[in-house]
């Protein structure tokens, strides 16, 4: 090989790597900018009163407690419906179902469920839960709607976590006389649990931040009290943010960004929890 060709190739490689490095940096820049900007604009609004107070003066002053509580309740409500159903479906798909047209159909449905725009879930929830089942605009209807939206994420991550448990564990367990269910409950699920939890949290995190599915099913424009039954409507952080950003004239900017900051912290802390669970499980894992 001649030296000139070699140098040219080295040069091309340097340019290539340089471009890739720039691409990597460019993806990080917007995330960092969003975080810094919201922190910078929102931090002045954060106070004890803002977190624990009720909105006043047409939401232009006071706190956002009802929205915070509403979002927490909705997230728990979503979990109550989506987690058992999602994990159950994942166990069925990965451990019991054989590969046939029926399971292919189920998987196809799950994939398509994940692709439906969230506003369509909102309309579906309005039709089924709010109107047909007469739950009204309520935490129950909103939780069910968000649960349906979250299911695909939970099912697919849980299925992946269950499948990643080595097959040899199952064979050994069966060979000492365990039934398939005993094997799943005592060996497979404990090993898959961190992965399942990660998926659950990531799914719920998405639910917590969504606006469209709760728009028609649960969210109240202005309801300055805490809900006292699952059939109550409630304010929520994402919808409150939408309302104060677009519907209320003369809204102080810092309250908008303060609300955004609270939502961001809520969602990011779930994300960080998931990351911690995952890395701790990786460190402890024996396979």
């Amino acid at each position, binding site marked *: 090989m001649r030296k000139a060709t070699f140098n040219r190739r080295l040069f091309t490689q340097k340019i290539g790597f340089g471009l890739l490095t720039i691409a990597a940096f460019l993806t990080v820049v917007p995330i960092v900018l969003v975080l810094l900007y919201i922190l910078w604009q929102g931090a002045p609004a954060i106070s004890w009163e803002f977190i624990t107070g009720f909105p006043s003066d047409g939401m232009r002053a006071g706190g956002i407690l009802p929205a915070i509580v509403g979002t927490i309740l909705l997230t728990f409500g979503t979990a109550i419906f989506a987690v058992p159903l999602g994990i159950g479906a994942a166990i069925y798909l990965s451990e019991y179902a054989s590969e046939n047209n029926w399971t292919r159909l189920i998987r196809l449905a799950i994939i398509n469920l994940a692709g439906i725009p969230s506003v369509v879930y909102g309309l579906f929830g309005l039709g089924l839960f709010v109107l047909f089942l007469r739950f009204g605009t309520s935490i129950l209807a909103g939780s069910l709607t968000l649960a349906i939206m979250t299911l695909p994420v939970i099912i697919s991550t849980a299925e992946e976590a269950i499948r990643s448990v080595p097959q040899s564990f199952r*064979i050994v367990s069966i060979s000492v*006389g365990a039934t398939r269910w005993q094997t799943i409950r005592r060996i497979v699920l404990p090993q898959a649990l961190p992965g399942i939890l990660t998926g659950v949290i990531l799914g719920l995190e998405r639910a917590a931040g969504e606006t469209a599915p709760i728009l028609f099913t649960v969210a109240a424009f202005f309801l300055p009290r805490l809900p006292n039954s699952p059939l109550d409507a409630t304010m929520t952080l994402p919808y409150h943010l939408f309302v104060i950003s677009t519907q209320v004239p003369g809204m102080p900017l810092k309250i908008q960004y303060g609300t955004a900051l609270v939502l961001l912290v809520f969602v990011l802390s779930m994300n960080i929890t998931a990351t911690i669970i995952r890395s701790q499980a990786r460190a402890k894992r024996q396979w």
Partner: protein
Amino acid sequence: MDKIVIEHLFLNYSDGTESLKDINLRIPANAITALFGPAGGGKSTLLRVINRLNDLADVVFVSGKVSLDGLNVLDPKIDVNALRRRIGMVFARPVVLPLTIRGNLTYGLEIAGERQKAVLDEAVERSLQLAALWDEVKDRLDDPAAALSGGQQQRLCLARSLALQPEVILLDEPTSGLDPISTSKVENALQDLKQNYTIVIVPHSVQQAARIADYAAFFLQGELVEQNVGKLIFTNPQDKRTDDYVTGRFG
């Protein structure tokens, strides 16, 4: 006395990889029976028929008869979990369950419904003694089993099958991944165990078969070519194919 009797056993997997053709074999109690031959001969398949582990595999066809003390093993109506408690199995790669050392040993008993601590503790010590592992692990029974060395893990797997006090132990190339010292520990343990157990082993080499077998059967491409008392099949094989394999002309 014959512990396991296999008559006219035929078996096919759906992908056609390995099959058994008209296997007739009597496995005597309290002895080591070695099933040997080149890869793909059906030895592992036969082991997995005896404890019905093949139920998990893609078997499309089975016919014939396998009996364990007169119990028809292939009968779909038998309690297959109880059958597997009577028949322990050790695999080629040591697979310890993601539990403690103690947890690996008590697992089979616990799922069978045993709750008494005294019974479980006794089973732990007895099975570890039998597998020649007690002295090495008695002070760290609550450590993760995965922390043991490969040779120790394989003896733990042997102990795990012994904890259930089975009647038969199936071993599928149990020493293929082990160093010579660990291998001889396992082989010595098997020699002690055969007083009380029926042992069926797929050895990982002809040499190992010759070392430990009381009875031996030579498998080639799904057929049982020849069976005899261990020493005879290696020193004076009757079939030319056995002779060729034992003397290393193929394999």
